[in-house]
């Protein structure tokens, strides 16, 4: 009998559409709500955002985001509120801190290295290309034309 393991195939049920109908006084708040619940991760699920999860904690957290928005909190304040309680895990956009420097600057660094590699490769290639001189290219044209 094998050790018990989880079969969580393709998409587990907790990642089904989670649709609440929270009222908002204006479109700006409503859109901010959508953006925030997209950016916050459901603490209980296997990689789903608050918008996509039907779990109890996700529902409660969506409600909290709604409440905080109505209280006039800024996006950063709301994200921080969540961070205070659930840590880095709940933020899909990792905070820029000492532990994530490599993460955020890695790609830029890669790009720089790529540029350096490219530059060096091209420089070595350039010397191999023998551009035809003016006279030679005119001679070539004449030869071709004659045919």
């Amino acid at each position: 009998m094998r050790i018990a393991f989880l079969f969580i195939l393709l998409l587990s049920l907790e990642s089904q559409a989670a649709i609440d109908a929270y009222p908002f006084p204006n479109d700006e708040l409503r859109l901010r709500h959508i953006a925030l619940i997209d950016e916050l991760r459901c603490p209980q699920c296997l990689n789903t955002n608050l918008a996509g999860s039907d779990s109890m904690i996700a529902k409660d957290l969506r409600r909290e985001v709604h409440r905080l928005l109505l209280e006039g909190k800024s996006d950063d304040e709301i994200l921080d509120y969540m961070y205070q309680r659930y840590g880095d895990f709940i933020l899909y956009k990792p905070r820029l801190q000492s532990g994530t420097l490599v993460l955020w600057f890695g790609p830029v660094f890669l790009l720089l290295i790529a540029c350096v590699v490219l530059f060096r490769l091209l420089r070595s290639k350039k010397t191999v290309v023998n551009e035809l001189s003016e006279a030679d290219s005119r001679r070539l044209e004449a030869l071709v034309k004659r045919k």
Partner: protein
Amino acid sequence: MIAELGHFSLILALGLSVCLVVLPATGVYLRQISLVRLSGSLSAGLFVFILFSFVCLGHAFVNDDFSVVYVARNSNTALPLQYKISALWGAHEGSFLLWSLVMAGWTLAVSQFSRSLTLDMRARVLSIMGGLSAGFILFILLTSNPFDRDLPIYPREGADLNPLLQDFGLIVHPPLLYFGYVGFAVPFAFAIATLTTGKLDAAWARWSRPWTNLAWSFLTMGITLGSWWAYYELGWGGWWFWDAVENASFMPWLVGTALIHSLAATEKRGVFKSWTVLLAIFAFSFSLLGAFLVRSGVLTSVHAFAVDPERGLFILAFLLLVIGGSLLLFAVKATGIKSNAGFSWTGRETMLLVNNILLAVAVGAVLLGTIYPLIYEAMTDGRKISVGPPYFNAVFVPVAMLLFVVMVIGPTSRWRSTPVEKYFKKKLLPAGGSFALASTLLFLFTPRFEPLAAVVVGVALWITVDLIIDWVSRVRHKSNRVIRLFQQPLSYYGMLIGHLGIAISMTGICLTVYFSEEKDIRMAPGEVVELSGYEVKFLSMKKVRGPNFEANQGEIEITRDGQHIVTLHPQKRFYETARNMMTEADIDPGLFRDLYVALGEPIGGDAWAVRVQFKPFVRWVWFGGLFIALSGIISALDKRYRVRRIAVGNNAEQSLA
């Protein structure tokens, strides 16, 4: 009994694959042509036995044999037949059996369609592929056997397939993906075989091109389909989440794209020989890495299969052996390879190099983001972090934009060197025109002007216009235009359609990201809500029955300026066996917009929470994908890649040299 036959067949297949590794290669070494010739029949035998094994498992599913643990876990007597069959690859063990079957399939194909290879090369290539097969089958037999029985007491009824998987998507998405993933084993085998001969010439590039294009095409299809499936299945209108498993398929795709471009340069100009070999190794490596990520439980994902460290360790060891070995071989044998062809920084070679370098950066960034949670957890001794769409979009999109620019100037540049002034003069008008047109169109038709969207759409238009101009100029030169059309090599049309596909996808992605609108509202029968100029009216709610579920079905009418557009029927389903609730969104698909409605929960009285979405141009994302996939197939069919048969028979001894 049948299950045991299937199991036994698999063991035989393992034996054959080991023979395939050893015998032909020994034949090459000992110059025994009879041994080398065995590779054909060994490949065929391998395929037949795995196929038989697969069919046996299928038999167990179709006949509801719940004494087989895998069937009991993933099926049910009430499950519709097509899903019983596709449940075969719905979970880990069975899907890996499919993976092995596909591997054997590609091996057989290579053995059948590579008559133009020298016997020596053929033996090496098939030997390597046989080795990969052996590894896969061993993995199944040792850690993930789908034929395990639960005797003497077994369930009368199965646990049922996850309702989300009871869909057309399951029937096509995994097989297509696997054709792609595993297909990269072919250029991989070619590359390794070439390395082992020590002669790194451009011939292997010509042999590999059609195979690589085909595998890449399948992978494109698989990814496109997966995205489309998630869109209509999940209920919240998303189509790409940068989930670890999605990335696991995207990374080999990116490398594969670099590979097909690099193969072109190596074949035509003999440049980038070692880069191309490295890319071939990496493409398949990322496929294997993807398999590891999905099946080991090391990364958290909604897509992940079983969380079983034993399996993970096996795959990791396999990875280390295969990829580590390949890279070591590369380091040793690729030393001292220099191409003679020179080119200037304005040549097409440079464009391709820049293209590949950018793709490499993209892969690096995606890989970094995907495994960073692991690194962080190890670094901080247990703290968890999430890296999600905001990160991936922030690092990928800029690189993608740079790639698109190269895509415009690349295809029409000349090999070796392009006369810069003339070239850029030719580009200015189409560029300016495209950006102007894009801006105008967006200004006229979108609710608010987004300059970045105008830039992206402008680039897409520029790419398209440029492709058309180039095509017209090629077709134009002779008097009889129609003939000239067919005189272009197929790979040119492949390039055309492929790049066009990218432009289409790019446009779709940009427009849907910027201009989608979504509302979650409380609606009672009779109520109307406005969405992007449409009126959405909740008509009624009723109960309906399905084959294995019961549902609440809403009737939602959408009109525009009083004109009826469509009536949609979203459902909230309850699956009896699995005891699961599921939302089934209803979508009105359109070429230029999708209208999307899904039900939430009932909220008091007869009101329901309803989500309505307006998604402009979202279908273009997948149409583009289809074009791209098509381009791979078209290119693969190019006659130029079918190298003429080398006379075998009498010259056999010599070809073994």
